[in-house]
């Protein structure tokens, strides 16, 4: 089976599933359409909220960002999860209690003012459009790559598909579609994480591997990472060059921002009561935490592994016969550049410049760095191959144009 077949298989399969779910959950009343009839189970709603809210930024970019920022990346971890505490304690149950469909409805009724309601509508539209612009770019890239059409046409096709299942199924259809998305998302994220954790620390649970020793060595994984990055001239991993006040303020902004996202808040209208809304926020955070506590582990493993395999490796220039060239390098006692590096080089997300002409890749901080192109998203996208996963698992992530199917799946929500 060729790459082409699997690409079609996954894309047609996922969107086929979504449309099937929408047909099955067809909305038959206003209540069904906007709030799924108020009868979604809190846990199911929590899962749907998690999938709805975790987009390409969480899935694809966050671990890569943390890998580079080290402690500085904590702002995303604390910020994007801490907002749910505010949501559960201060917002969701009270809005649900009021029993309206949307936040502008609530604002308008609570403050007896059409003007306030109008302002709330404008705010909601502004936030939603800003949010969806990023998501739609992902849809455009994915569909244009997959169908081999212009970027704009790709967006139109993607939007058309989303339109069909959103209009058919309403909130109910979207809820169950998102449950399906969450399952795909968390599987695609945690499986490589488990394997890479096993390889580096010998512990299958990434969260525990994160605080364990390096496999077969008497040194903590984070401690080793600190030493390794410092030796190459980078800042210690557990430190940040951001000031404390910056970290404090960014974390705060992200927390309050998360608590106010309209597409998250509206999810709490779909459960049966204020009590159910509280429980649902708890479940949402459980499902989010599954990814969010894995991400920092993945980030540190990936950084360590990247340095370990790429730094001081001998570059293989020819694309044609990697295996033979790599074997020759090993026979000479050298370390060949990993094959996944060569694969991702083609997408332009990775690239080297042999500045000192010694044929060996030096990864450093500063001007001597020979890894001149290093897209941060690579750490998640290349993870399955970095972790040496079997081909069936790898194929799903090596996507034409360098897009993981995961991105495509949730970028539409």
């Amino acid at each position, binding site marked *: 089976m060729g790459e082409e077949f699997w690409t079609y298989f996954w894309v047609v399969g996922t969107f086929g599933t979504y449309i099937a779910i929408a047909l099955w959950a067809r909305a038959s009343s206003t209540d069904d359409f906007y709030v799924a009839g108020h009868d979604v189970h809190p846990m199911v709603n929590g899962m749907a909220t998690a999938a709805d809210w975790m987009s390409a930024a969480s899935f694809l970019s966050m671990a890569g960002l943390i890998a580079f920022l080290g*402690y500085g990346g904590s702002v995303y971890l604390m910020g994007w999860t801490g907002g749910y*505490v505010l949501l559960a304690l201060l917002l969701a149950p009270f809005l649900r209690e009021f029993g309206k469909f949307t936040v502008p409805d609530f604002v308008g009724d609570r403050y007896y003012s059409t003007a306030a309601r109008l302002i709330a509508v404008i705010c909601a539209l502004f936030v939603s459009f800003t949010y969806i612009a990023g998501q739609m770019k992902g849809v455009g890239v994915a569909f244009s790559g997959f169908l081999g059409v212009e970027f704009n046409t790709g967006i139109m096709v993607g939007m058309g598909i989303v339109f069909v299942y959103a209009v058919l199924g309403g909130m109910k259809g979207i809820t169950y579609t998102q449950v399906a998305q969450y399952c795909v998302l968390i599987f695609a994220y945690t499986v490589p994480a488990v394997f890479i954790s096993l390889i580096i620390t010998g512990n299958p649970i990434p969260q525990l591997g*994160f*605080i364990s020793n390096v496999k077969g060595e008497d040194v903590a994984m*984070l401690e080793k990472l600190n030493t390794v990055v410092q030796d190459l001239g980078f800042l210690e991993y557990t430190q940040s060059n951001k000031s404390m006040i910056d970290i404090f303020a960014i974390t705060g902004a992200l927390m309050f921002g998360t608590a106010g996202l309209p597409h998250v808040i509206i999810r709490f209208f779909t459960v049966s009561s204020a009590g159910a809304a509280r429980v649902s926020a*708890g479940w949402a955070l459980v499902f989010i935490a599954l990814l969010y506590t894995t991400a920092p582990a993945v980030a540190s493993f990936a950084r360590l592994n990247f340095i370990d395999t790429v730094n001081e490796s001998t570059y293989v220039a020819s694309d044609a016969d990697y295996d033979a060239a790599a074997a020759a390098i090993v026979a000479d006692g050298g370390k060949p550049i990993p094959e996944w590096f060569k694969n991702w080089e083609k997408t332009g997300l990775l690239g080297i410049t042999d500045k000192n002409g010694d044929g060996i890749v030096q990864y450093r901080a500063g001007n001597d760095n020979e890894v001149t192109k290093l897209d941060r998203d690579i750490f998640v996208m290349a993870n399955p191959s970095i972790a040496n996963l079997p081909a069936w698992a790898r194929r799903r992530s090596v996507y034409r144009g360098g897009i993981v199917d995961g991105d495509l799946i949730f970028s539409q929500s």
Partner: protein
Amino acid sequence: MSETHTKIDGKGYWREVLRLTLALLAIWFAVSYGAGILFRDLLDNLSIGGAPLGFWFAQNGSIYVFVGLIFYYCRAMARLEKKYGLEV
């Protein structure tokens, strides 16, 4: 406290809700802004497994506490609603 079932003690209920909310928000603040940011250098002198404690709070620990906080809040609110006869 004398419980009257004919009239709901809304003020008492609300006072308890506020106290609960403030206490939980204090913990919320302490584990993230406190342990993860303001006092992290201090906490980094300790470690959990192989990770500096302050760093761990910022990247993992605070998230676990957040989850616990929300579920505790659910239970406590259900109890309060029962106590004041506000169950639906």
